[in-house]
């Protein structure tokens, strides 16, 4: 399995080495690379910071204040995660010409990916012990300082974890930037690939992988020490929600604005284009078959990725060690690789080494999805495995239950929520995947994303819009389930989970 996950990297190294080291250096060491680097880095930094702020504040408001309708907001601020970045981009850019280039990219990406920070932070805020805040306050620390030093301190790991995902996703994003006319490493990799220069595309991808490594290292370093869990025994006191008081109205307006911007605009402009755009071809039939293909591929990917994540999660949690931890961390690198690169790697190995076995068939596409979204599945399954104590399985063993039945009857039920969440997250990601799909999709098949893209590229906004709406509809359910999963996480003992994660 490690071999399968390493395929993309092996492909990159091979193609790049084919070009020769000196040639490679020549390809990378250009002023174009510098400008791409500047674009990519400034975008990643700005969006990550914005997502951290918005995600954390939104989570704090929902979890720790007496925000009216908190449970409804909790759903509404998560659902934007179900909207593909290129649809958000399409929605905003068709609204105003202001949304383009760097500022457009910042706006669109922030709105599209802030839930990646919101979800873990909300879970962590709910699970954290409010006692630490009480102590800080009782020692005369001001409210604001307490918020920054204690409350945020407790959520620090969740914030950085979310930021890590945000940064990696931005590195690999393509569709949104193409619509906005913003050049990053990934868009240039696509251009190079299009003009049939795979070695340049691979050289640039290697730079992207190095950027991803920096992000990973930065996140590792920022984890730091310090305990966030309770030491004493006994029960945490119940959370007392902060009264918003006069701030209630402005806060409500802020939530409404966020939801309108992240959810309302993409959906609204899709509906607008259905009525406004020229309708000169029948979309109905292809909408149905595309939805069927999309669901089929995505379900397959969700099954395979979750099945792959399970043993890895058990291994790294039950037998922690530096090597295992490092292996696990490096799987995150695949998130920083554009889907195109993963797809190229797979079709390369299929055509060059496997006599075109499976080339342009559904199983290969599902495999590509599984490799790409494996890290996401791992995150979810791991969170649940970390919470399920191995001692229960051992007790079952001591009572004479064999190993496999013990795993099935004891461990599996305990980690079921994590498995469900992993399934949903991978499904959701696969439904919105575009670039690998374009390469690997079987001839004559189409997914919602490829159809949306084809029409959008042809400026047929009226035909593209229904596909966007169906994508959102299909993806909204898993994103809701996902929200519920993170919602429940702390009640099952997040503190314990965090202890074991350390």
């Amino acid at each position, binding site marked *: 399995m490690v071999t399968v996950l390493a395929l993309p990297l092996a492909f990159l190294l091979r193609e790049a080495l084919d070009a020769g080291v000196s040639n490679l250096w020549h390809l990378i060491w250009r002023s*174009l690379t510098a400008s791409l680097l500047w674009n990519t880095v400034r975008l990643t930094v700005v969006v990550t910071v914005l997502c951290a702020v918005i995600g954390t504040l939104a989570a704090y408001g929902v979890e720790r204040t007496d925000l009216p309708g908190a449970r409804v907001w909790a759903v509404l601020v998560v659902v934007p995660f179900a909207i593909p970045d290129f649809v958000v981009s399409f929605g905003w850019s068709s609204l105003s010409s202001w949304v383009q280039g760097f500022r457009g990219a910042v706006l669109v990406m922030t709105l599209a990916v802030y839930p990646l920070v919101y979800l873990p932070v909300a879970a962590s805020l709910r699970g954290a012990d409010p006692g630490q805040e009480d102590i800080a306050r009782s020692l005369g620390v001001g409210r604001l300082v307490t918020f920054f030093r204690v409350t945020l301190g407790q959520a620090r790991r969740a914030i950085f974890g979310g930021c890590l995902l945000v940064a990696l996703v931005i590195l690999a994003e393509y569709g949104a930037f193409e619509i906005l006319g913003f050049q990053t490493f990934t868009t240039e990799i696509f251009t190079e690939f*299009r*003009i049939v220069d795979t070695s340049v595309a691979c050289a640039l991808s290697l730079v992207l992988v190095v950027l991803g490594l920096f992000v990973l290292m930065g996140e590792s370093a920022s984890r730091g020490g310090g305990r966030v869990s309770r030491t004493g025994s006994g029960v945490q006191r119940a959370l007392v929600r902060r009264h918003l008081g006069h701030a209630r109205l402005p806060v409500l307006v802020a939530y409404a604005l966020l939801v309108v911007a992240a959810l309302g605009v993409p959906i609204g402009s899709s509906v607008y284009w259905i009525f406004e755009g020229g309708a000169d071809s029948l979309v109905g039939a292809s909408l149905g078959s595309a939805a069927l293909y999309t669901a089929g591929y995505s*379900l397959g990917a969700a099954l395979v990725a979750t099945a792959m994540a399970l043993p890895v999660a058990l291994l790294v949690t039950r037998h922690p060690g530096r090597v295992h931890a490092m292996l696990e961390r490096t799987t995150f690198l695949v998130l920083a690789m554009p889907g195109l690169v993963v797809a190229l790697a797979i079709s390369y190995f299929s055509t060059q080494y496997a006599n075109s076995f499976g080339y342009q068939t559904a199983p290969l596409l599902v495999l590509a999805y599984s490799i790409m979204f494996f890290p996401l599945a791992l995150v979810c399954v791991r969170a649940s495995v970390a919470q399920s104590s191995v001692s229960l399985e051992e007790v079952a063993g001591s009572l004479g239950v064999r190993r496999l039945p013990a795993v099935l009857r004891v461990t599996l*039920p305990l980690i079921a929520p994590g498995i469900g969440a992993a*399934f949903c997250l991978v499904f959701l990601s696969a439904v919105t995947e575009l670039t690998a799909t374009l390469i690997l999709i079987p*001839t004559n098949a189409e997914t919602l994303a490829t159809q949306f893209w*084809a029409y959008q590229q042809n400026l047929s906004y009226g035909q593209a819009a229904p596909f966007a709406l169906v994508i959102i509809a299909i993806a909204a359910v898993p994103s809701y389930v996902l929200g519920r999963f993170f919602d429940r996480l702390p009640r099952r003992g997040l503190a314990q989970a965090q202890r074991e994660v350390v």
Partner: protein
Amino acid sequence: MSSPARTRVRARYSARLVVRGLVSITAIALVPLSVAACTGGSPSASSGKVTLTLYNGQHVQTTEALVAAFEKATGIDVAVRSDDEDVLDAEIVAEGSRSPADVVFSENSPALEYLQARGLLAPVDRSTLARTPAKFNSPRGNWVGISARVSVLIYNPSLIDKSALPTHVLEVADPRYRGKLAFAPGETDFQPVITSVLRTYGKAEALTWLDGIKTNAESHIYPDNEAISAAVNRGIVAFGVVNQYYWYRMRAEIGAANVHSRIAYFSPRDPGYVLDISGAAVMKSSRHEAAAQRLLGFLVSAKAQEIIAHSISFEYPIVSGVKSAQSETPFDELEPNPIDVAELGTGAQAVDLLRDVQLL
């Protein structure tokens, strides 16, 4: 004790739900997967009936109309794989002799010349080649021209006056257009213009020209001509160089009321005024050569050319006697630079120049 017990019961219950859910979901998933697997691999393997695989870089809807008419006329099924012509080229080269493609249909001649230079194309039937003017076919007879497009300026009258537009392609690089020009370095439609300039003025001047374009378009670099057209139309940038049909197609898609841009031509026979030929070829590796040749023959038939003439791809049919039914400048009134498809080549020189000035 009751609380953990309840948790366990709930956990097992939810586990069962999850497992049951997964099982039924898998069942649902397998249906389209198996369908897809059947249609994906080698389509003709299961039945005796021939299914051609067409790698299509042309406008999807028009190709679908052409393919439907071909299937109806011949009973031969065609599986269509659509993508950008350069992506399809890359796929074909990677696939080598095992390529599933029987026929490749591209937007511009360089995409076909590129495959021809690699020895991947089979000779086209003489009767097919005879249907179109020889200057629009492969010089070696390995692909046939199907339709034509022409490069134009697209501009937004609220940002630039028509009289202020360049009439000569070298003027596009003039400093007075700084910040006004939109440019797509990766767009294959523009490479013929670069090659045309290179052929006319030589490498040194072409490089200076591209450098000027780079400066002028600094803040308006786009992925393709569609994006340029949309940006100019929305008033983000004043003008760009695209092919004529992008503007017409955009007008058909978004409605005349939403069109805020216009098109203009370079002066007659200017190196920027280039006719691009879209063509099709049979792959040497095709296992259905006879059927593939029939598809090519069909594409230059009067019937197919009429479909192109009436399609919303707004390209010019090139078989004599068939004229575009759309309200655009008639084909025989165009006055492009008389550069031919052999001189336009594979586009490799254009890419080298773009790399030299760091646009790629």
